[in-house]
């Protein structure tokens, strides 16, 4: 096993008004390839901020951040966009699907950035739909799907380009128990069967149990690591 995420002395602060508010302070830790990590901590402790940094949608102030061997802090805006499209799958609390696109089209969206032909795209999308168990719902718009189904569409979209890392920010935060269980089971399968490295932010102790490791953040500092 090797480290897929290497974080060294990472700091991040936000400017609010005239004040600088430190969010992450001097974080150092690694994440192993194939791991399933749950990031926990009180509200405002910087979980989302850390996840965004690892996923390359925000930039740190100081420190090193290597993902898959690449120093992503050195990438330009457009290089970072390419890198995200190829290496990271995103799962959001509120699904963030395009409301004017069907389930099928939402899943197909990231493939527009690839060179795949129309028929190859169809094949990929159908495979992903089958994996999340929504083949019969592919023509539905997000507004015609339940929260759990929408989140499964979002997961299919996240894995459609076969990224190595999946990041999920409270993926069950908006779901009832049963739907949450479905989503968590699906994520565990993606980790076990496809070897995806998953970093999941959650408030839910039960959800965190699905992960191999739990990391506690408090006021920007990493507390403990429990198995």
């Amino acid at each position, binding site marked *: 096993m090797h480290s897929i995420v290497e974080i060294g002395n990472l700091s991040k602060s936000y400017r609010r008004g005239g004040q600088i508010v430190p969010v992450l302070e001097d974080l150092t830790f690694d994440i192993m390839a194939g791991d399933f990590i749950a990031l926990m901590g009180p509200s405002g402790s910087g979980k989302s901020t850390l996840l*965004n940094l690892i*996923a390359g*949608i*925000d930039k740190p102030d100081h420190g090193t951040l290597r993902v898959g061997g690449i120093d992503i802090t050195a990438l330009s805006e*457009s290089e970072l*966009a*390419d890198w*995200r*499209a*190829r290496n990271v799958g*995103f799962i*959001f609390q*509120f699904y*963030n699907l*395009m*409301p*004017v*696109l069907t389930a099928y*089209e939402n899943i*197909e*969206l*990231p493939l*527009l*950035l690839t060179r795949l032909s129309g028929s190859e795209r169809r094949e990929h999308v159908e495979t992903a739909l089958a994996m999340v168990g929504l083949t019969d719902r592919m023509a539905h718009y997000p507004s015609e799907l339940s929260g759990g189904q929408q989140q499964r569409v979002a997961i299919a*979209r996240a894995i459609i380009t076969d990224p190595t890392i999946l990041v999920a920010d409270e993926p069950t935060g908006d779901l009832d128990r049963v739907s949450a269980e479905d989503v968590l089971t699906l994520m565990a399968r993606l980790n076990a069967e496809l070897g995806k490295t998953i970093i999941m932010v959650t408030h839910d102790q039960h959800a965190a149990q699905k992960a191999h490791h739990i990391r506690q953040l408090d006021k920007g500092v990493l507390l403990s690591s429990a198995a």
Partner: protein
Amino acid sequence: MYLLKLILRNALRHKLRTGLTMLGIIVAVLAFGLLQTVVDAWYAGAQSASSARLVTRSSISLMFPLPLSYEGRIRGVAGVQAVARTNWFGAIYREPRNFFAQFAVSDNYLDLYPEFVLPDDQRQAYLRDRKGCLIGRQLADQYGFKVGAVLPLRGTIYPGNWEFVVRGIFDGVDETKVTRQMLFHWEYFNETLKQRTPRRGDQVGVYVLGIDNPDNAAAISRAVDQTFSNSLAETLTETEQAFQLGFVAMSNEIIAAIRVVSYVVILIIMAVMANTMAMSARERSAEYATLKVLGFGPGFIALLIFGESFAICAIGGVLGVAATAPAAALFKDLAGNVFPIFQVSSHTLLLQTACMLLIGIAAAIVPAIRASRIRIVEGLRAIG
């Protein structure tokens, strides 16, 4: 395909908002087209004027006639092929509000105006009858004048009662020619005047000159005016087109105002459209941020917004352009004979199309720049 689908579905997301905006564009493009057509109608007389004809008049003012003796001297200028006499008559038919143009013209006048066509027998009948007159088709239609009818006029500039017999009705060779005038014999006019007010005889309002080559218009004009320089009645010679535009220029301020208004209409709808696009783009911040997360660049997002703006403008604009010709026809019917020619020109259609494109692009610029520059972290926080 995928992109087009996304753009069109986005455009139809708020059906009421898009519908109202589109209606605004239709109305604006239509109003713009009609106003431009009004301006065109105003200039129609000048546009149908020929540059192969010159007009010589008193350099002081149109109010002052020129001596009849000038005719022979003008004919002597190199390049001049024919000289016709015309006097503005300005009489009233029955009631003052029945105003139309009347000209006393020499018999060679029609030779200079091939754009007016007249059956040969009517032409001969006119030439035979001293009191005969010719009526343009548009005028004849307006008042129901028929060949053989007696046409009484009450003079204003040349007082007294005058009587004419309609001997012919002439048509324009095409729809752009104004045929709202009456022509009659200059000889009859002059002889009657000499009887009634002898000192006003032998005077010509303006001379119309046929020339050999339009390219020589400037040189010939100069030569004519030089012939009469330092005389009691100096002349001003210019192309018929310039002459007609001189008339239009009197109402230049009105025309300019109409023009300005037509563009103001476009500016207003541009602001409305920009507002619609800004509202839509703002509501979709989280979606644009999500697209960026997935790896789409700022260009893709700008394209979505430009495409949407463009689609709305194109649909509204095409409907507006399509409605212009029927609306113009209706307008012409309602306005009666204010404008003898009221036709939507291809130039106007082109301008409408250009305006529509301009609205589509201009309205999207600011929202597109804003949305494409959106920072992912901030855009995602706009959710919920």
